[in-house]
């Protein structure tokens, strides 16, 4: 039976992590359908159809789906699910909100943040902030799985799957979307950036993050932070990298003024190359760093910014 990937989107395109979810899904079954639920989401459905490996796109149009209200989207997924062996979503804030609601309505377990598909019913997932890896097997008829996008290569574009229009399930009236306060940034999105520059409590103020912005802009990097920096109000919550924030795995991760609590390491230790800049040579971040510099970040960061070439 086919796999149903539920795609988050902005009305124009599906999120980039849908291509990662398609890769994971195709390891469960080669027949991969993508559900794009939205209000005038035809363009997003087309973008899903272009992902290689997708065999069909379902475009469900309903005013109730405009803003991803889980209470309204879940009944649609539940209605479609009996035709599928798996329901797959990326483990982002949309998937984490929606998938467990779907699983409970189907009376099945959910596998959260799978990082490997061992077989169609067996998955590896991190537990204890990634300090242990559990291999779990599910006997449920419909398997609800969220996948960690950084652990699956994005499927290529250039595909041309057929798009089928399906009806919606209407609004349940339980919840409504009021608005959003989104961080505006020209920089690459944190979870898909090739390079991430991240700051911690060592920055000492939000003002000092400007120094990191200058470095990030020169490298074409995304900007992240530790929980300590977010809690201190230096940067908004969506910058947080870690166990309960975002998980990133860029080619290069530069940790600046971050001590490296296990909860932070959980969000970045799969990065290809890690650089740590910290004044405390005993800081745990150095245990995972490929290259470390012990010293004053206020001196080192401007020097580094001057030394790298503009991308």
């Amino acid at each position: 039976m086919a796999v149903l990937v539920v795609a988050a989107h902005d009305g124009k395109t599906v999120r980039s992590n849908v291509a990662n979810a398609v890769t994971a899904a195709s390891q469960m079954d080669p027949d991969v359908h993508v559900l794009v639920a939205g209000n005038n989401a035809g363009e997003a459905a087309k973008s899903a159809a272009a992902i290689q490996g997708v065999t069909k796109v379902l475009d469900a149009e309903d005013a109730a789906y405009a803003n991803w209200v889980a209470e309204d989207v879940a009944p649609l997924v539940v209605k479609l699910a009996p035709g599928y062996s798996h329901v797959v979503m990326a483990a982002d804030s949309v998937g984490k909100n929606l998938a467990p609601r779907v699983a409970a309505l189907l009376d099945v377990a959910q596998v959260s943040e799978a990082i490997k598909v061992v077989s169609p019913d067996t998955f590896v997932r991190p537990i204890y902030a990634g300090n242990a890896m559990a291999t779990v097997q599910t006997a449920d008829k419909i398997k609800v799985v969220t996948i960690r996008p950084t652990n699956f290569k994005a499927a290529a574009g250039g595909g041309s799957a057929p798009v089928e229009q399906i009806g919606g399930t209407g609004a349940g009236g339980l919840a409504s979307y009021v608005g959003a306060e989104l961080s505006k940034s020209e920089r690459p999105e944190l979870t898909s950036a090739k390079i991430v520059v991240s700051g911690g409590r060592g920055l000492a103020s939000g003002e000092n993050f400007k120094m990191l912005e200058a470095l990030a802009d020169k490298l074409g990097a995304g900007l992240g932070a530790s929980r300590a920096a977010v809690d201190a109000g230096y940067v908004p919550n969506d910058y947080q990298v870690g166990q309960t924030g975002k998980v990133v795995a860029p080619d290069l991760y530069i940790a600046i003024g971050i001590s490296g609590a296990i909860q932070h390491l959980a969000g970045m230790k799969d990065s290809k190359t890690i650089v740590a800049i910290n004044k405390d040579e005993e800081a745990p971040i150095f245990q995972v760093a490929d290259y470390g510099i012990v010293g004053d970040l206020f001196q080192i960061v401007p020097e580094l910014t001057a030394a790298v070439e503009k991308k």
Partner: protein
Amino acid sequence: MKVLVAVKRVIDYNVKIRVKADNTGVETANVKMSMNPFDEIAVEEAIRMREKGLATEVIVFSAGPAQCQETIRTALAMGADRGVLVQSDAELQPLAVAKLMKAVVDKEQPGLVIVGKQAIDDDSNQTGQMLAALLGWSQGTFANKLNVVDGSAEVKREVDGGLENIKIKLPAVITTDLRLNEPRYASLPNIMKAKKKPIEMLTADALGVDIAPRLKVLKVEEPPKRKSGIKVKTVAELVDKLRNEAGVI
């Protein structure tokens, strides 16, 4: 309105966990256990609601072995009113916990349930959403701010791009994110008082809930270790390594 909060007994967040040699799980014997940090935030939020007159009673739910009474006592010492423990020595997975909570909700009829968004042991991030689904209630997940007004709740949620505002009908399930509040410490007099507060003991059987695990854990292993790196002395050396050795800039 009653508010029900759930607390989970987990390995303390400061403990470096060890995988058991036989790969069946993680070593929990003689390890410091504490309340899941996200649940402390849930307890705090409920107590603040009662202090503002928005809640009449704060009931603390837990499920697990007898020692979970200590975790409930911690919440009672923070200021919650009474506890309910579904005692079980079996492995409890999120769907089973959601079903147990539903049984208690059916009995207690709270107007709001607040739980942590995830437990720091299994990192599932499921129970709150599952409970809302089973009850047919609305859900305000990853709450950064909660405002209860006239039979509904305005919830500011932490999402990928920043913050999102939703309005949901009560009764509802809220799951807490880190910035919702800063939990208080229990004072010594309140710790003493908490010893006298009642904890009701229940079982899954008595509630008629099937708690059999749906996911079979085949093995638990150590993650692959990163090779230890080197320290460089100068920025010039760092740039050279990144360019010519790692090839990432």
